[in-house]
């Protein structure tokens, strides 16, 4: 082929090529705001030359392919950092919630309530028989125990929210992996024809979204399909197949092709799910445990002092607040089922004073119960030892609690408990419960505020109702170290709150750092892949002019034909 027909055919190819290039430009312009869209470039190439009368003439232009501008290395890097960022962002959010629960920046936090509680004991010590002081103290105690139990309930609620989030995100992950598997199949089919650029973009977009939920890794197979696994290698997508995750209310499970499932909870470290799991399984339990240790010590220390004292009146019928699951086990044995089994000193003793109807000590003196002595040791043993005292009786109730009650014309009081057994059994105590979740006031005190023990029975068994020695002891607890905490109760709370603040601060810093990296990588990725309108407009003009020039070639050919035809 030669001459005018060559000119025409070259011009026609050029027209088609420039038009196709304009199609690509318009596709780019249309997708300027599409997330994870990679700009496409038409690859123009000169056609193979044609030999003609000893010369080699060029054969015009052709579009050989449409190239997708993407950098797999940057994409992969971005995806991994995005995964970390999602994890720390979620942790940051939940730490913010946890901080607000403690709410110490205001003056209504737990530490203020504790201070009010100590002050109320001081006020009672200044006026031990005052009704107003007794009521105020009761209310302070009730507020404080509510403060603990509300905090515990709110932390519980936080865990429930985390589980709900985990549950719904597992569904989203499954949807995404199914769509990736779907795209894999389409990509494999279309790759036989050409580069399915837009499907690759869509798949990359899904990968990026998926990595916001959990840490994943992926690689592209020779047939252009992608294999996606969790960070620890459990396969989520393999060619056209996807493998689901499930959530059983506590664990994230991976469902393999068979019917078996594997618990992969601990292996998820990135993405929102990684962040939520870290909060739920590591950070929140750490602070919740500390809160429970604090309230456990608080209950024990207060009760142990309170049990030493006596109120404005003696008791006639009292039932302990802590039950034993097995009344035949030693009181210092875990198998007894008593909450404070390991807090007592089995070598200690305590006294019971019995009073006759005119308030005089009956039986000539205190009845001393030796906790590990004959007749002691177990709850049943203590009960029968007390039952043996004239004027009073004792029994183990059906729920394993110790009930002590007197004959109708007698009453009784406790003193000098060096063992802690009274506090262990909840006899003559202030609080009930054993941790933050179930801390509450002893119902006996609610019924009768006169039982708040500001006084102590003296060595002769006499009860001075205006005595304040036990209240003074209690007020001093504020400044004493709680043995189980190795610190005062107030200081322990302050350092617990400080450690939450430090954790929150360090998570925020990690988030800021990771966000900077992610932003830089995103910028790099976008500068490689995303559309620039200026650039497309330049290309538009470039291809438009080329198109016009090619059209000019056709009209030149037309004129040439005309010239030849006219010459006849």
């Amino acid at each position, binding site marked *: 082929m030669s001459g005018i027909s060559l000119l025409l055919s070259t011009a026609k190819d050029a027209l088609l090529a420039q038009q196709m290039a304009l199609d690509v430009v318009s596709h780019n312009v249309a997708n300027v705001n599409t997330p994870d869209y990679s700009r496409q470039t038409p690859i123009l190439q000169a056609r193979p030359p044609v030999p003609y009368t000893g010369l080699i003439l060029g054969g015009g232009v052709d579009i050989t392919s449409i190239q997708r501008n993407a950098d797999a290395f940057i994409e992969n890097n971005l995806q991994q950092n995005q995964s970390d960022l999602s994890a720390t962002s979620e942790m940051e959010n939940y730490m*913010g919630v946890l901080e607000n629960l403690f709410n*110490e*920046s205001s003056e209504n936090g737990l530490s203020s309530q504790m201070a009010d509680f*100590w002050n109320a004991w001081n006020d009672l010590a200044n006026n031990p028989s005052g009704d107003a002081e007794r009521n105020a103290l009761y209310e302070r105690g009730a507020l404080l125990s509510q403060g603990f139990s509300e905090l515990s309930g709110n932390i519980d609620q936080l865990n429930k929210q985390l589980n709900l989030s985990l549950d719904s995100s597992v569904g989203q992950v499954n949807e995404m992996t199914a769509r990736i598997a779907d795209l894999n199949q389409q990509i494999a089919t279309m790759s036989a024809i050409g580069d399915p650029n837009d499907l690759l973009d869509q798949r990359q977009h899904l990968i990026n979204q998926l990595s916001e939920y959990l840490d994943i890794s992926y690689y592209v197979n020779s047939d252009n399909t992608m294999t996606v696994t969790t960070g620890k290698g459990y396969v989520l997508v393999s060619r056209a197949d996807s493998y689901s995750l499930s959530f059983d209310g506590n664990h994230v499970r991976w469902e393999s092709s068979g019917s078996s499932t594997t618990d992969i909870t601990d292996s998820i470290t990135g993405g929102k799910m990684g962040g939520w799991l870290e909060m739920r399984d590591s950070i929140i339990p750490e602070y919740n445990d500390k809160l429970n240790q604090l309230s456990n010590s608080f209950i024990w220390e207060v009760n142990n002092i309170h049990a030493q004292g006596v109120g404005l009146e003696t008791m006639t019928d009292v039932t302990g607040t802590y039950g034993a699951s097995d009344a035949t086990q030693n009181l210092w044995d875990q198998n007894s089922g008593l909450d404070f089994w390991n807090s007592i000193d089995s070598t200690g003793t305590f006294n019971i004073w019995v009073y006759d109807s005119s308030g005089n000590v009956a039986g000539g003196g205190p009845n001393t119960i030796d906790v590990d002595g004959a007749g002691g040791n177990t709850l049943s043993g203590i009960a029968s030892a007390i039952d043996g005292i004239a004027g009073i009786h004792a029994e183990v109730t059906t729920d394993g609690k110790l009930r002590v009650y007197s004959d109708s014309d007698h009453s009784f009081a406790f003193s000098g408990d060096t063992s802690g057994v009274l506090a262990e059994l909840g006899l003559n105590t202030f609080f009930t419960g054993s941790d933050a979740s179930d801390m509450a006031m002893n119902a006996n005190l609610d019924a009768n505020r006169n039982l708040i023990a500001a006084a102590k029975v003296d060595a002769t068994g006499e009860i001075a109702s205006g*005595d304040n020695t036990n209240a003074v002891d209690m007020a*001093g607890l504020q400044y004493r170290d709680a043995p189980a905490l190795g610190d005062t109760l107030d200081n322990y709370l302050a350092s617990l709150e400080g450690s939450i603040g*430090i954790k929150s601060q360090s998570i925020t810093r990690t988030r800021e750092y990771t966000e900077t990296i992610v932003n830089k990588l995103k*910028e790099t990725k976008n500068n490689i*892949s995303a559309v*620039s309108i200026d650039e497309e407009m330049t290309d538009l003009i470039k291809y438009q002019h080329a198109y016009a020039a090619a059209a000019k070639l056709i009209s030149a050919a037309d004129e040439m034909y005309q010239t030849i035809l006219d010459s006849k």
Partner: protein
Amino acid sequence: MRISNQSTYDVVKYQLANTATDLIKANEVVTSGKRINKLSDDPIGLVQVLSLRESLSSMNQLGRNVSTARTWLDGGETALSSVKDLITDMKTLAVQMANGTEGANERAAAADQVEGTLEQIVSLANTQVNGQYIFAGTKTDTEPFSIDSDASGNPTGVTYSGNDTPFSIKIGKTATLEVGHDGEAVFGDGSTSGIFKSLIDFKTALETNDDAGIQQAMDDLDTDLNQMISATSDIGTKGVGLDVKEKILQDLNLSYTERKSNLEDADILAAISDVNSKETAYQAALASSAKVMQVSLLDYL
């Protein structure tokens, strides 16, 4: 370098969000007046603030305890100084009655005066502060002293029904101060020793016109007066101790409040100028972002 439109938008969004966050944080400091608004703003500072708050709260309470202690001491001091005056009067009476010129009638009349004084002193020994008996040991809601009388109504003795542990008030982290009194130690048991026995003996001596008895009463009353003086000066010493305690508490309160404020409160001037500079930065960012986003080749085609 190639810059995509997406990069421009992303950078603008990120930077605007950052400057806006800075502005909001600076504003929070000004509006709350506090430098620490949540645990993570300054965890170390917060722990110190919490501990200072706790110390301040307990110091305020100790301050209240100290003023309660002062009320008790004042009550005791007033009662004892009245008792002292009464004893002095009785001594004068005894000196007067010891004179041989006084007859049985005068002495009988004086006996009535002695009985009246006995009742007054018993009533002073039953002094209450805030409804609590201060000379009853820890049995602060039991009237400590009561007069025993024979069939014809003559006092035969005074019974103490308090106990021997003085009522104490907590005035320091570990310190307590005995502000009440073991009444028996101050006034005697009422039957074998002390002011009540002296007065009853004096009265009997007057009634029986017993010169030796009146002489004896003068000696006894001297001993009792010394006892009262020593008890009063004991209270005075405690009062001085309380003054020191109160001063220390006030000084500590001031310095703790100042330290807490330094840690917790915002320096308002600095905070406001911070808001201004953050606002300027934000406005500059907005202005320049608006310019950058507007420019496009399209405007020139």
